[in-house]
């Protein structure tokens, strides 16, 4: 990029500097300070927030969040890959419509959307009423306020983030390759594992981090669908800032989360770097970051 065109980046850099890097630095600094008696901070350097974050009580929350994020991502991948493939192989004139359907949820408010799931799963919701009237159950199943409900909400909300990058790869995919694989003797699974999956990998990797990273820090969905019993890392941080008013501890937890997310993205980047050096994927035109 030429020197003169860099000037166009000034607004963006200023924006990011003021509203992203600035606050992040503030959080980083706060995480090393002490909490004041009235929810303020005392400018006294300490590592106490981090040692406290290692308490088994919190470690359990982290691991629960990690398990939830991992399983949500896995479910999204399992559902998203065939969905993206189906959309990409649908007749060209249907594709914009199908992609549009995928985006329909984003037209409604996030809270409304999540709350709708709560209503569906509720004791007096359609599922329970249906099962009751069919006589399959005698009393409503408690589906809300559970980790299952949270996972359901997560998958529903984040599936498009998995589908879109994979679709982008399949869109440029030469489907004659699948015919070639079949022609050369592949049937069923090898067609998928030897041709489709390796070529979809760049999109899949993007999808994995696009789902995993936000889900790990998600606090609204666990709050609305998980009830008080299901406290996740995101919820824990929110609680520190909004209810407990322990900004330094909340900051330390936030820093841990940010570090974890950056680690995931670094892993993905590194993996792609290895793949790129093997000279892979260029033909399907997926741009690497």
């Amino acid at each position: 990029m030429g020197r003169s065109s860099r000037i166009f980046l000034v607004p963006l850099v200023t924006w990011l500097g003021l509203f992203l890097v600035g606050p992040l630095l503030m959080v980083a600094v706060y995480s090393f300070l002490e909490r004041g008696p009235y929810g303020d901070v005392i400018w006294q350097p300490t590592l106490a927030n981090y040692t406290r974050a290692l308490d088994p009580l919190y470690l359990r929350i982290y691991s629960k969040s990690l398990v939830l994020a991992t399983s949500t991502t896995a479910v999204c991948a399992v559902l998203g890959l065939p969905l993206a493939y189906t959309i990409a192989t649908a007749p060209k004139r249907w594709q914009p419509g199908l992609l549009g359907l995928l985006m329909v949820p984003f037209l409604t408010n996030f809270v409304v959307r999540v709350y709708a799931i709560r209503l569906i799963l509720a004791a007096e919701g359609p599922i329970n009423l249906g099962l009751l009237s069919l006589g399959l159950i005698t009393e409503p199943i408690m589906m809300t306020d559970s980790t299952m409900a949270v996972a359901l909400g997560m998958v529903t909300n984040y599936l498009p983030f998995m589908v879109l990058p994979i679709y982008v790869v399949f869109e440029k995919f030469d489907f004659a390759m699948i015919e070639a694989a079949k022609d050369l003797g592949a049937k069923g699974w090898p067609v998928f594992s030897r041709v489709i999956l390796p070529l979809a990998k760049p999109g899949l990797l993007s999808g994995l981090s696009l789902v995993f990273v936000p889900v790990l820090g998600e606090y609204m969905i666990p709050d609305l669908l998980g009830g008080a019993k299901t406290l996740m890392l995101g919820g824990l941080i929110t609680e520190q800032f909004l209810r407990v008013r322990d900004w330094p501890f909340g900051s330390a937890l936030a820093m841990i989360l940010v570090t974890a997310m950056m680690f995931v993205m670094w892993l993905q980047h590194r993996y792609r770097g290895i793949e790129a050096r093997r000279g892979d994927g260029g033909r399907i035109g997926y741009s690497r970051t």
Partner: protein
Amino acid sequence: MAMLSIRQISKRFGAHNALRDASLDLGSGEFFSILGPSGCGKSTLLRILGGFEAPDSGSICLDGKDITRLLPSERPTNMVFQRYALFPHLSVAENVGFSLSLQKKVTASDRRRRIDEALALVAMDGLGERSVQSLSGGQQQRVALARAIICRPRVLLLDEPLSALDLQLRLRMQVELRALQRRLGMTFVFVTHDQGEALSMSDRMAVINGGHIEQVGTPSALYDRPATDFVASFLGTMNRVPVQFHAPCEHSANHVWVELTGGQRLRARWSEGTTMPPSGALVSMLVRPEKMGIREDCHGSTPRMTEAGDELTLSCRVADMAFHGATTQITGQLHDVDISVTATHLNRDGLPVGLGQGSRVRLVVKTEHILIAPDNARN
């Protein structure tokens, strides 16, 4: 008995009749071309042979076994795809050895040996470790070929494999492909829209138009004795001279009598598969430019026939003369019917002295080289 026999294959895509009652018999070790304009159904036929499309009706037998309903993976056929369809995430050797790697019983060393062998056959020795994306178009073509022949299919299907190459490379690959086919003794079914390719490479060929097989035969038979108007016009160039239909010939089927200007009658072959018009209707007389001998003008009425009725003489005024080195082509105005024709003359020997623009010449054609076809919109 034919090795591959295709019986009355029909295929529709919605309202579009891609193939109508296509039947073909292919011998073992034959280089067979399927030629036709785009959308004529030739690729559909190839895809049906490969198992990628199921025919609506009809059957395919290979070595006496019905393979119509077999999956592509179960057929002893392999395909070279139009855009090669190489796997970009695999190396050249991995692409070539893909089918072997699916067979558990092939050992790694055996696989390596056969990959090297296949690569050597297509003159790609030593390039196995390369990534397929680093290859040129011609090299990718060779890899696709090696990948398809490594398992020695009974029939190799080639879907316009040379169409993506530039002219120079295409000509070279034509020769190499033919040499490879002879060396392997394998049956090749080669789909192309390039008449030159089909004529120069094939043992036999079929011309398809609108989902219908128009004619099957050796390239020279199709060129010299086209059965239909379509085959005549699709292969090479044709002069079209309007004549009047008189009557079908009572002695030999497929022959008709037509009337030239001046009442001269001529007996020639009638285009197969078309209905004959009523007497007096306008039809076309089709003659290849190189079948028209250019002679010095002499007096006498034209058009006229020889006594035996085997040679026709037309009179023409030269409008343009073009020297192409090996051939000389004249474009002229027919004296009697006011229509322009071209005649191609090999070498310059025997051309009338002082031939040039404005000269009057005689054009001589043997009647066996004349085809009479309905007068359609093609002229």
